[in-house]
């Protein structure tokens, strides 16, 4: 049944059904039909994860029943926010609660050495009788031996499930980790299944020596209708929250109670998704923003200016805030969107804010401008730009053509080029009207700028003093323009691109 089902659902990467049936034959166990175990788990999970019935059913049929043999490895993949981790965690917890399966869940990011991963796994997997002493496993061999020992003690009554989150990190660990995990069932002869979770497909995992087969299950991203259903599933929670908020204000409470229907909420979500769905399909992100914007949406209704059924007027009210919230997505700033509203576009504002918040000394500002000019002007233009009496230059057709730059050639779009500290200081002295001494304060400000990551070393970090180190300016044009405005220096005038 499982093999047949697998062909239907997880046919993306072939899994030899013959091998699996061979495995079943190796371990003849009482395979009486017990749909109840698997169905119990599926029934427990389906209310929690709407629109994931297919994946839950597949998982249930593969590892739902601990009395049946598990497949040796599962690979669950999908985008971020598709519920891989949550689904697996709940599934394993249900398995553990209902069937007494020993489970282990770990994140491969936390395991920067193999030993940590193995010992974490052993600690959580250890059967009840030997939980008191913590187990040691220095390498894969000891890990497998330890598991085999449990097999000898407990017989095959115990089943194990191991879930490894962020499985793409396994490729960077020791070369034997992934191959061993994929065939851990065969090596330990336990009823054990390793579930790997990742955002990339399994075709990125093949190493030079080959891997054993794995069943991969894809968690597809939700479409618009599904997203709306998931966002709408917390209606009662939102309503309860709002009613509690207005419990003092009797008038608002009454309006709120009358207006807050499921239809109203789904209308709102429809409007919300019509703006947001193009930019983002990440459900947690959408949930967060939808809650934030709902209070603004509700505002005219509570004030009594707009009827709760008048969708078009509500849309006119909410369209502005939604658009401005769209520019704030993925930023996770805890500020209501109405504060962000202003005449200037948001991106501009954020750069200005950053420049304002960064308080640099006067010379450091000039150094930064000089670094920007050094990065974005070619060195052979320096004489013309910065030397006062650089002689006459005859205008020739050739130079005019060469200078007629298209936007692709503009160095502000191409990215910064590297420069030496000597050139930085030369430009600094050229653009600074007064003559300051080359003191250690000045030089230390360069290194401070490097520490603040406004400049960065491209090469020669070891030999800074002999002048062969090359730097790069890492701030954008707007930032430098703003700093120039503060100190009263026109940066555009000195940029080749704008001549």
């Amino acid at each position, binding site marked *: 049944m499982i093999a047949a089902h697998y062909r239907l659902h997880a046919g993306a*990467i072939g899994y030899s059904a013959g091998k699996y049936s061979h495995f079943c034959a190796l371990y003849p166990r009482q395979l009486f039909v017990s749909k109840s175990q698997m169905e119990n788990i599926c029934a427990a999970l389906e209310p929690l994860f709407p629109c994931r019935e297919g994946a839950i059913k597949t998982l249930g049929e593969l590892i739902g029943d601990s009395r049946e043999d598990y497949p040796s490895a599962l690979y669950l993949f999908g985008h971020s926010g598709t519920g891989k981790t949550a689904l697996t965690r709940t599934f394993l917890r249900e398995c553990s609660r209902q069937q007494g399966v020993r489970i282990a869940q770990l994140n491969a990011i936390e395991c920067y050495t193999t030993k940590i991963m193995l010992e974490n796994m052993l600690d959580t997997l250890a059967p009840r009788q030997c939980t008191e002493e913590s187990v040691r496993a220095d390498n894969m061999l000891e890990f497998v031996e330890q598991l085999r020992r449990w097999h000898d003690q407990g017989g095959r009554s115990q089943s194990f499930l191991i879930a490894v989150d962020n499985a793409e990190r396994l*490729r960077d660990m020791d070369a034997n980790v992934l191959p061993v995990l994929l065939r851990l069932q065969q090596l330990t002869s336990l009823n054990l299944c390793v579930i790997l979770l990742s955002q990339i497909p399994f075709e*990125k*995992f093949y*190493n*030079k*020596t*080959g891997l054993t087969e794995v069943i991969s299950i894809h968690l597809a991203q939700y479409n618009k209708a599904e997203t709306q259903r998931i966002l709408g599933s917390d209606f009662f929670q939102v309503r309860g929250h709002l009613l509690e908020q207005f419990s003092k204000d009797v008038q608002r409470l009454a309006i709120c109670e009358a207006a807050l229907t499921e239809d109203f909420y789904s209308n709102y979500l429809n409007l919300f998704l019509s703006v947001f769905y193009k930019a983002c399909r990440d459900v947690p992100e959408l949930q967060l923003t939808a809650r934030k914007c709902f209070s603004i949406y509700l505002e005219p209704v509570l004030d009594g200016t707009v009827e709760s059924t008048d969708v078009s007027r509500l849309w006119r009210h909410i369209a502005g805030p939604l658009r401005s919230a769209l520019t704030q997505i993925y930023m996770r700033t805890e500020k209501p969107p109405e504060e962000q509203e202003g005449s200037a576009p948001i991106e501009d504002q954020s750069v200005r804010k950053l420049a304002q918040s960064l308080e640099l000394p006067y010379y450091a500002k000039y150094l930064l401008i000089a670094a920007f000019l050094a990065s974005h002007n070619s060195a052979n233009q320096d004489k013309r730009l910065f030397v006062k009496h650089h002689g006459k230059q005859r205008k020739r057709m050739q130079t005019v053509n060469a200078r007629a730059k298209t936007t692709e050639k503009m160095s502000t779009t191409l990215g910064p080029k590297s420069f030496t500290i000597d050139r930085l200081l030369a430009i600094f002295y050229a653009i600074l009207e007064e003559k300051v001494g080359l003191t250690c304060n000045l030089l230390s400000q360069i290194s401070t700028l490097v520490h603040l990551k406004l400049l960065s070393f491209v090469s020669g970090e070891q030999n800074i003093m002999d002048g062969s180190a090359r730097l790069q300016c890492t701030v954008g044009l707007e930032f430098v323009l703003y700093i120039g405005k503060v100190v009263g220096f026109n940066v555009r005038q000195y940029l080749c691109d704008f001549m």
Partner: protein
Amino acid sequence: SRLAEGTPRRSIQLSNIVEQRVFKDNEIISTPKRGRKTKSIEDADADYSPRSVQKTPTRTRRISATAKSTVTPIRGTAATSASAAPITPSQKLKKIRAGELSPSMQQRSGKPVDESRKSQLQLAREQLHVSVVPKSLPCREKEFENIYSFLEGKIQDQCGGCMYVSGVPGTGKTATVTGVIRTLQRLVSQDKLADFDFLEINGMRLTEPRQAYVQIYKQLTGKTVSWEHAHTLLEKRFTTPAPRRVTTVLLVDELDILCNRRQDVVYNLLDWPTKSAARLVVVTIANTMDLPERLLMGKVTSRLGLTRLTFQPYTHKQLQEIVTARLGGSEAFKGEAVQLVARKVAAVSGDARRALDICRRATEIADTARDKCVTMLHVQQALGEMIASAKVQAIKNCSRLEQIFLQAVAAEVTRTGVEESTFMGVYTQVETIAAFMGVSLPPPGRALRLCAKLGAERLIISEHSRNDLFQKILLNVSADDIHYALRVGEIAAAN
């Protein structure tokens, strides 16, 4: 801090089994220990009753932690400590380091098969086994004479010296040298020659060059000590003159493994013979002829001296002679069968082991065919198995898409002219070939899987699939092999 990095200060090899070469007639080459003569060896064997494999304490930690009861208490020298008090692992370790417990192996419960019940082919197969070294090696008489005269001269003159023996693998270097030593030991037992000690180390059996000191000292006294200690003790032994010092013959096999960057071990081993007090004769064996000039430092090369001997690869006549000598009077082999083996092997390497292995395989084939005698056909089949490449078969047994993929790699190599192609270019070729053949195209993800499978089978050489479209692919089989495998297959399918 003086030590090179990675040198464990105290790495005492416990699992090193005392080297005892047992030849056909149970003749044992071993160091005649001062004081206790050959009797002591027999003693050790007698009172050491092999009980269980776990006496070699290679995995003591785990065993002692969990299954303590399974460790049989060892009565070291069984008769003396009959109190049956179980000794702790550290006591056991101490005894092993002192050489009081000799490592033994578990013995079989059944008895080995009687000689008389073996068939002629079976006897021939046993005679042809590589480990059965004959008493006198055929075709190596001149080399034997050379080494014999050198060693006999050195022992009689009671001075030290060095010799360097080289030759490609399987040309009888070690067998000849140990044969000379055996002859000399026989002379000693007949009182026709002055007594000498024989020590033997092999570079490949050491985890690092400095362990050579430990092994040499262990063969002199039977004790296992750290290499620093062993080095000082050996230094003391070889530099201070002592009356009634006998000559020591040291055989150093795989000399090139003992060469590290500092070459201190090789230098010491070759410097001790120059001391007048040492009376050390070092015979070094290696594969490359120009090793002293290529790898060793000037002072080491000059100490190695110019007494050299090169073992040439066997010609087909010599190989024929060797195999015929092995078979003795047996009728198990046809004459031309032996000649075929000899000619085929001599043309490739001149390795006697290879010839013997092929002959053994031929006897097995003849056995399964229920023939009494090995004929040309059996030898041909054995040669096919042991020399012919399996790549064409592997390509023929690939799946359809894998074959298309291999064709595509070959096509991409012909198109660009460069050996190394990227996955992207190969996939374009796969598209073309699949469209041409009218089969449906695998998506790139599946093609990566095909690529990984072929890479794991080493039909191609590919990178990790994480940089999918840009991974480099090399063809590990020749393009002609692919065409041959697939074209011949097509014809067979058409018929």
